[in-house]
């Protein structure tokens, strides 16, 4: 039972992290029509920024997190303005490779600015604070990550559903050309999407940083899971990938504990493939219609 409870909270935490990353990927997929392979590395880069300020100047973890969020915003805006917007007319596959180019630039920048050593980064709330539930320790940091992620995502959904900006985002996502003709500021929408996605990725990176430390590969696992979450939930909605993220987190955690680390993953991946065969557009996705 203790293990079960521990796994349950663990999965909620990893699920929240996957969900943040997945939401960033879907946001970009829908507004810029590209699979952003650089999502993980954008987060990593800004996590480096936070870790750097923390180690160099001994600033408080909350303060450096705020700085990282600010630089994430900037990274998003810069990438959109300098790279993505000029590539607007490029076909979708080439655009994906443009994001590979972004990965390489960031991979090159990291040792240039921050050196080649992995950097340590603490949890937001030190791990000694927690409460016992049925024998398992629930850390306040875990609670913090879950609550903050859920609150953030809730706020985002509310924003997308009920504000003018949200409406602009939704219409840009559904048809950019028409939206532009209707006077929707699609350029600003895309820019804000990149900035938001960068912030979401950075938060995810800061949340996993304590366990994997800040290094170029830190987001590999999260990024893959986020893609898988998007596919499982369906890229055509914003809620789908979030649900997918929690499902994948639970499935991976529980199978790797009760079966084995590797075969658990293989089992989860294979089941998702089988699931996709029967629901090719994910849990919440709809089939796009095409007329001949």
């Amino acid at each position: 039972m203790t293990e079960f409870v521990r796994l349950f909270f663990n999965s909620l935490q990893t699920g929240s992290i996957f969900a943040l990353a997945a939401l960033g990927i879907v946001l970009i997929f829908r507004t810029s029509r590209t699979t952003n392979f650089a999502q993980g590395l954008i987060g990593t880069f800004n996590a480096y920024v936070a870790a750097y300020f923390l180690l160099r100047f001994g600033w408080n973890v909350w303060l450096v997190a705020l700085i990282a969020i600010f630089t994430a915003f900037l990274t998003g805006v810069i990438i959109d303005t300098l790279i993505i917007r000029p590539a607007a007319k490029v076909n979708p596959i080439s655009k994906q490779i443009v994001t590979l180019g972004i990965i390489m630039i960031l991979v090159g920048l990291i040792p240039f600015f921050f050196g080649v050593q992995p950097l340590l980064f603490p949890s937001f709330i030190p791990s000694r604070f927690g409460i016992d539930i049925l024998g398992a320790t629930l850390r306040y940091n875990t609670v913090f990550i879950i609550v903050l992620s859920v609150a953030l995502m809730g706020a985002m959904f509310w924003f997308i559903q009920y504000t003018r900006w949200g409406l602009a985002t939704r219409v840009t996502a559904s048809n950019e050309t028409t939206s532009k003709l209707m006077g929707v500021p699609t350029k600003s929408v895309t820019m804000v999407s990149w900035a938001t996605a960068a912030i979401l990725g950075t938060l995810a990176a800061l949340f996993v940083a304590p366990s994997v430390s800040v290094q170029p590969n830190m987001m590999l696992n999260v990024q893959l899971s986020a893609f898988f979450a998007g596919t499982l939930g369906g890229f055509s909605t914003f809620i789908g990938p979030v649900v997918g993220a929690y499902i994948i987190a639970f499935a991976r955690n529980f199978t790797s504990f009760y079966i084995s680390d590797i075969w658990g993953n293989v089992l989860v991946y294979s089941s998702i493939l089988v699931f996709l065969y029967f629901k090719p557009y994910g849990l919440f996705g709809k089939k796009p219609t095409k007329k001949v």
Partner: protein
Amino acid sequence: MLTILDNFTKRVHGFFQGHVYRNYLLFGAAVMMIPLMHNFGIIGSGTLGIWAYIVIITVVALGLNILLGFSGLISLGTAGFVGAGALGTGVFLNMGLPFELAALLTILIAAAIGALIGFFSLRVEGIYLAIATLFVGEILRQIYTQIEIFGGQMINIGAIRFLGFFTLNANPPSERRFLFVIIVAVMVLMMIAMHHLVHSKTGRALLAMSRSQAAAQAMGVSILSYRLIAFVTATVFATVGGVLYAVYIQNAPTTAWTLDLSLFVIAMVVVGGFKSIYGTFLGAFIIHGIPNLILAELFGDVSYIFSGVLIIVVILFYPYGAIQVFYDVRKWFHKGRLKLTTKRSDRSA
């Protein structure tokens, strides 16, 4: 001057338009000159290794070009199949099978998985299919690193015995150069096979399927058959690349076959040229050769930045691939010639 220019453009034009075998063979012969340079000490063995990798990965990227350029399909699982080629050959060789049989068995097994993906692609499309192939790649990767027969970190393969009688080892440089010639020969054969394929009924059907599924069906192109053909061919090319890796490097790591490699192979097609065979080689050179041969020497660690910028710049300015550069140069030559001729006729008038 004008006639020289004229002759030159005609030659260049003729080279690319002439008989298909001659062109690919000449191209192969040119690449085979590289070990000769190694022989004379002009380039080091590290450089030879980089060229060998370019040759190997070109074969992989050619297969992906059939998917991406012709069939409008994508695979993020390419790396898994290159790994299958290298590791499979290693496993079968270590079991004591002759090289040819080992390679054949590996290719058949990989082709079967490719066919499964083909079936799958009938129901799942777009980004969902892309990520489904990523699932396949990840499953393969997990298997490689965890199952004992793959030797944990890597399989040592050692010298390869071809046709049961001549053995080549990667170690003495003379034999290594011979191995290089062999992999180039295979690349040229694969290029010729691909050339024939894409200029045949099969190539047309693949294009029809990707450009207008409705028209393809109305003309009798079975989407299932051609999805299968596309994925199986791409898989076979990737696996052959893996086998070549086993042949040249003579060991096979289990951990190298990640999403990054698959993305780089896609980048080669995108940057080199969709649907272009020479373009694919050019892409492999730009993505793997330029960073490792030139940029790494110049900039060291930060060379990644330049490689990234290079990829983005090529895509922005040559959305159909860097092979366009050659067409542009040709056009520019023609234009220059035209201008000069008109000027001359103006004078004479």
